[in-house]
């Protein structure tokens, strides 16, 4: 036998797995039938949809905001770069749960918000509680926090691009912005995409925090059910299976997007490293 150690571990793992399945499937308190019943109820499906929409909306705000902040950070203008630095610092230095609560209670700090000249007249004012609905508070809380993290990811991607690329595109007469959009960012993508996929997968689960705002999503829907039925753990398992299923789909998407952006870098991927590592 070539790898006796592998066969022994495989046997032990198999035995434990069979035991695990037996315990979980014969214990009636897991309430598998109820889980199956509620998993596709309209309230849970609404929650799933809301979770997905909030994930993508918050990531969209995060990515666009992150790109803008990263470009500001690298700007020669000190006001822009310091301003971006400060924004990133504030949002990374405080818990996202606190940020969500602050957005949702902003009305208690500023009962109304308006546009106008500071210390001067204001042209229009709104009630803060009307302007910042639960939806807005959730999007601002998740999106701006994400923008701060994305800014660091995008910046790492931008500085990873060879300076010769900027030189070549400047020499061809590309403007700074075009150089960024057409030359630097597409190459930075190779470095930006993997952590962004991670952030998206993480965001899917972070959206469960917006039930404090309060905004409807999967965990909110789940809690509403077990508040009535008292099937706490079974419903939490059901919600977890939903989160796991959605996360898995995102992971598959991440694989294809990474492959797309490694175009032209056939030999630069991590696979070569893995192969050499294993065959040392």
């Amino acid at each position, binding site marked *: 036998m070539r790898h006796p150690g592998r066969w022994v571990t495989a046997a032990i793992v198999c035995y434990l797995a069979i035991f695990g399945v037996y315990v979980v499937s014969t214990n009636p308190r897991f309430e598998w039938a109820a889980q199956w019943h509620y998993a596709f109820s309209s309230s849970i499906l609404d929650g799933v949809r809301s979770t997905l929409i909030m994930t993508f909306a918050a990531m969209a705000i995060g990515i666009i905001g992150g790109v803008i902040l990263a470009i500001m950070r690298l700007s020669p203008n000190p006001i822009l770069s310091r301003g971006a630095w400060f924004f990133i610092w504030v949002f990374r230095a405080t818990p996202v749960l606190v940020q969500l609560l602050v957005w949702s209670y902003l009305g208690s700090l500023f009962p109304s918000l308006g546009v106008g000249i500071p210390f001067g007249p204001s042209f229009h004012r709104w009630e803060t509680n009307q302007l910042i609905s639960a939806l807005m508070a959730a999007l601002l809380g998740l999106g701006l926090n994400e923008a701060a993290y994305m800014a660091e990811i995008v910046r790492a991607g931008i500085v990873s691009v060879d300076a010769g690329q900027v030189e070549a595109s400047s020499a*061809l007469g590309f403007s*700074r912005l075009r150089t960024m959009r057409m*030359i630097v960012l597409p190459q930075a993508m190779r470095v930006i995409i993997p952590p962004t996929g991670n952030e998206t997968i993480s965001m899917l689960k972070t959206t469960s925090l917006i039930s404090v705002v309060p905004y409807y999503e999967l965990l909110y829907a789940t809690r509403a059910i077990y508040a009535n039925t008292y099937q706490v753990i079974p419903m939490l398992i059901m919600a977890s299976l939903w989160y796991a299923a959605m996360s898995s789909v995102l992971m598959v998407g991440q694989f294809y997007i990474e492959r797309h952006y490694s175009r032209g870098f056939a030999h630069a991927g991590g696979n070569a490293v893995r192969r050499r590592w294993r065959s040392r």
Partner: protein
Amino acid sequence: MMTQPMSNEFVDPTLVVQSKDVWKSFGELDVLKGISLNVPEHTVVCLVGPSGSGKSTFLRCINKLESIDAGGLWVHGERVGYIERNNRLYEMNEQQIARQRREVGMVFQRFNLFPHMTALQNVMAAPVTVKGVPKAEARQQTIALLERVGLADKMDSYPAQLSGGQQQRVAIARALAMQPRLMLFDEPTSALDPELVGEVLDVMRQLAHDGMTMIVVTHEMGFAREVGDSLVFMDAGVVVESGDPREVLANPQHERTQAFLSKVL
């Protein structure tokens, strides 16, 4: 806006590059210490000298990738990077610098092709986005250019799929796509395997033959002798000697030139 007073100098508009006492420093380090050089139209100037003598920096000043600290630099009679108005110099804005750079093509030692674009896309990108040439037309021109450098069959390859020599030829086509009136080459063959040097030099030789004005930083003395109209030897930020390449190479006047040539020849 930064301004600086202007000195009254004679600018010969027939010269492609006119450099008068150009100084450039990086912090404490003086890299160019008064470079004066004229490049007439349709000539090939070969710039040689030891590593660190400021050759790349001088090329980069010509298309404003670096700005000069003192002296004057003109391309086609137009001051590089500055606008002259009411006897004062005003720094150009980004668009004006970009417009000036379009007249000058640059080829780099490490090619600097865009790795996420095919050869065709590399060559087409600038004419389409910077000049606004319609795509179909730019494509025609690109194919013609790739044919000229002998790579029409490689137009859909990414840089990583091309040899160094092929990459450098695509890079030359990319620079030519902007229809520059001056080409700058910064050690275009130094990063190549010896057997690939010839194909790049062939393209450059053809380009010179077609009348392109070129400044070539190179260690290929055979090329300088054959194609160069003049050879400029630089060391430690100054032009040590210059003249007809065949004469300078056969009979270097200055000790530093002799020492350098004895190493590369």
